[in-house]
C-alpha cells in the first residue's frame, strides 16, 4: 500500500515538473547540480563530459534551467581545448602540446578533496567540486553568496601538466580555464596558448548568430556597438574596446521579449601575436563542420567565408599565458591560469538569485 503511495507521489511530481531533458549520457559522465545545494532549487545545470585522448576534458553537452519551473536551455553542444601552442622567445622550440595516447593524469583524494570534491571516471580522470564562490551580490546589509560546480582534469604534456577546467555557476555563468604547472626547461620566456573550440548551440543547433560588442569614447560620450558577424572570420581583441562576442538564438527570448544571449568575455593579460596566422585573432567564428576541430587550421576554415547568420556557428577563443621565468620556478612552476567567461544576458527578466 505504501509502495503504491510512493509511486503515486512520484507520478504526481513528474506531472508537475517542467519538461525533462531526455538523458543523453549516463553516470559518471552525467553531472547534474542544483543551486543552492541545500533548500529549494533556484537554478540547475546538467552537464555531459568525457576526458578524451588529446584535448582532455570535453564538455559534450550542457543545459541550464534558470528556474525550477522553466524549460531547460541548451547552451553547449561541444566545448574543448582544440590545440595548445607553446612557442619560446628565441623562435625555437615551438611546440603543439596536444598529442594522442598519453592519457590524463589520474587523480586521487589528495588532488580532489572531500567532502566538496569527488573523483569520477573509470581512470579517476575527473574531479567534480561544488564550491562556495564568494559574494554573488551585496548592498549594505543585504547580500548573498554564490555557489559553483567545477569539473577539472589534468593533461600530461612532458614537462608540463595542464589543468583543464570548466565551471558552471549558479547564476548561469560558465568559466573555461587552462592552467599550466610543472617543471620549466631552461630560462627562456615562452607562451602557453590554448585555443578553445566552443560549439555553442543556444536553444538548439540551427539558428544562432554571433555579434561583436565593442566600446569607444567620443568626447564625453561612451558608445557601444553591436555588429552581427555575417560571415566566417577572425576578430581581434582591443582592451580599450572591451571587445567581446555574444551568441543569440533566433527565437529564444526572456519574459521581457528580449533575445537571450551568452556573452564570451576574455580574461586577458595580453594578446599573443606570433608568426603563425591562427594566432592573429583572439576570436574566430566558423560555421559547424564535423571535421573542423583544430585551432591551428582556423585561417583555412574561414576561407572561403560562409554565412554565419541564423546558422550553426562555432566560436573559437585564443588566449595565452606569458610565462616569464622567475627564480621561483626553479623546481616547480606553480599553476598559472588563462581563460574566459560565458555570461548570460537577458535570460531572466529580472535579477536572478534575488532576494
Amino acid at each position, binding site marked *: 500500500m*505504501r*509502495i503504491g503511495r*510512493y509511486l503515486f507521489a512520484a507520478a504526481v511530481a513528474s506531472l508537475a515538473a517542467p519538461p525533462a*531533458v531526455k538523458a*543523453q*549520457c*549516463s*553516470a559518471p*559522465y552525467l553531472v547534474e547540480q542544483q543551486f543552492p545545494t541545500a533548500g529549494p532549487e533556484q537554478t540547475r545545470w546538467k552537464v*555531459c563530459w*568525457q576526458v*578524451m*585522448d*588529446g584535448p582532455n576534458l570535453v564538455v*559534450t*553537452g550542457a543545459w541550464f534551467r534558470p528556474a525550477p519551473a522553466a524549460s531547460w536551455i*541548451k547552451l553547449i553542444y*561541444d566545448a574543448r581545448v582544440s590545440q595548445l601552442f607553446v*612557442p*619560446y622567445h*628565441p*623562435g*625555437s*622550440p*615551438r*611546440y*603543439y*602540446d*596536444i*598529442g*594522442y*595516447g*598519453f*592519457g*590524463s*593524469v*589520474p587523480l586521487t583524494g589528495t588532488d580532489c578533496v572531500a567532502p566538496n570534491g569527488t573523483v569520477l571516471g573509470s581512470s579517476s580522470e575527473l574531479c567534480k567540486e561544488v564550491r562556495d564562490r564568494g559574494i554573488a551580490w551585496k548592498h549594505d546589509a543585504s547580500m548573498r553568496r554564490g555557489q559553483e560546480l567545477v569539473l577539472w582534469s*589534468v593533461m*600530461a604534456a*612532458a*614537462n608540463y601538466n595542464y589543468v583543464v577546467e570548466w565551471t558552471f555557476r549558479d547564476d548561469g555563468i560558465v568559466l573555461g580555464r587552462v592552467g599550466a604547472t610543472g*617543471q620549466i*626547461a*631552461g630560462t*627562456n620566456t615562452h607562451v602557453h596558448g590554448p585555443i578553445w573550440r566552443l560549439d555553442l548551440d543556444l*536553444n*538548439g*543547433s*540551427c*539558428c544562432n548568430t554571433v555579434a561583436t560588442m565593442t566600446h569607444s569614447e567620443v568626447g564625453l560620450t561612451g558608445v557601444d556597438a553591436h555588429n552581427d558577424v555575417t560571415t566566417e572570420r577572425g576578430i581581434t581583441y582591443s582592451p580599450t574596446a572591451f571587445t567581446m562576442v555574444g551568441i543569440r538564438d533566433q527565437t529564444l527570448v526572456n519574459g521581457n521579449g528580449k533575445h537571450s544571449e551568452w556573452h564570451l568575455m576574455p580574461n586577458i593579460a595580453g594578446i599573443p601575436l606570433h*608568426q*603563425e596566422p591562427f594566432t592573429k585573432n583572439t576570436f574566430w567564428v566558423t560555421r*559547424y563542420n*564535423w*571535421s573542423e576541430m*583544430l585551432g*591551428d*587550421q582556423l585561417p*583555412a576554415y574561414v576561407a572561403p567565408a560562409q554565412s554565419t547568420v541564423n546558422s*550553426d556557428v562555432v566560436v573559437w577563443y585564443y588566449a595565452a599565458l606569458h610565462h616569464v621565468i622567475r627564480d621561483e620556478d626553479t623546481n616547480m612552476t606553480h599553476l598559472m591560469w588563462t581563460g574566459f567567461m560565458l555570461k548570460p544576458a537577458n535570460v531572466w527578466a529580472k535579477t536572478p538569485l534575488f532576494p
Partner: protein
Amino acid sequence: MANAARAVLLAAVLIIAPAVARAQGPLPLDPLTPQERAVADSAATSDPRVREFIGAGRSRQIHLDFISAKSGARGEDVPPTRHAEVLFYNYDRDLGVLALVDLSRRRVVDVARVPGKSVPINSDEVADAARLALADPRVARLFGGQMPSFRVATKAASREELGTPRIEGLRLVGGAANDPCTRHRCVMLFFRVDNRYVQMNRVAVDLTAQQVLIREGER
C-alpha cells in the same frame, strides 16, 4: 513490512534501472565502448577511401575516439546516431585523413583531409623517436657514456615511477625556413632522471627523414 517494501523499491531504482540502461547500450554522449572502438577501427581501415590513402606510402593510425557529429536538423539536441572519428597520417604525403564512422551502420560516412602540420603526434611516434635516439652515439655522448636505462613513458608518472628514467615527447614544429621541422614531422624528446629533466630541448627526431637532430640549447 514497510521497511522491506522500501528496500525492494530502492533496490529496483539503484540496481535494476542501471542494469537495464547498460543492457540497452551507451547513451548518445557516453564514451565509446570497446566494441564500438573495434567497429570503428574495422570500418575505417576497410574503407576504400581510407585504404587508398594509407595504402600509398608510410602511414599509421594516430587516433580513434568518440565524436558527436550533427546531422544539421533544427533544434537537434544530440546526434541521432553514435559516431567515432579515426585519424590517420601519411608521412610521405605529409597529410592526415580523418574518417567519420557511423557506428550503427558500421561504415565510414565521410572523410576529410588534414594538413600534416596539424595532425598531432601519438605515443607510438614518441616510442619510435626514442628508439632512433637511443641508438644514436651522439645521444649517448650527451650522457657522457653513462646512459641511464630509459624506458619510453606514454602515461603520467605514478608516485612509484617518479624516480625511474623515462623518455617523454612533444610535437615540435619549426618556424624558420632552414629548420627541418618546419617541413617534416618532428618529436622533441624529454629525458627524465630522478624526476628532473636533463638534456632539455637537445634531442629531436625527424620522423619523416628518420633522423636524430641534436639541437643546441634553445631555452
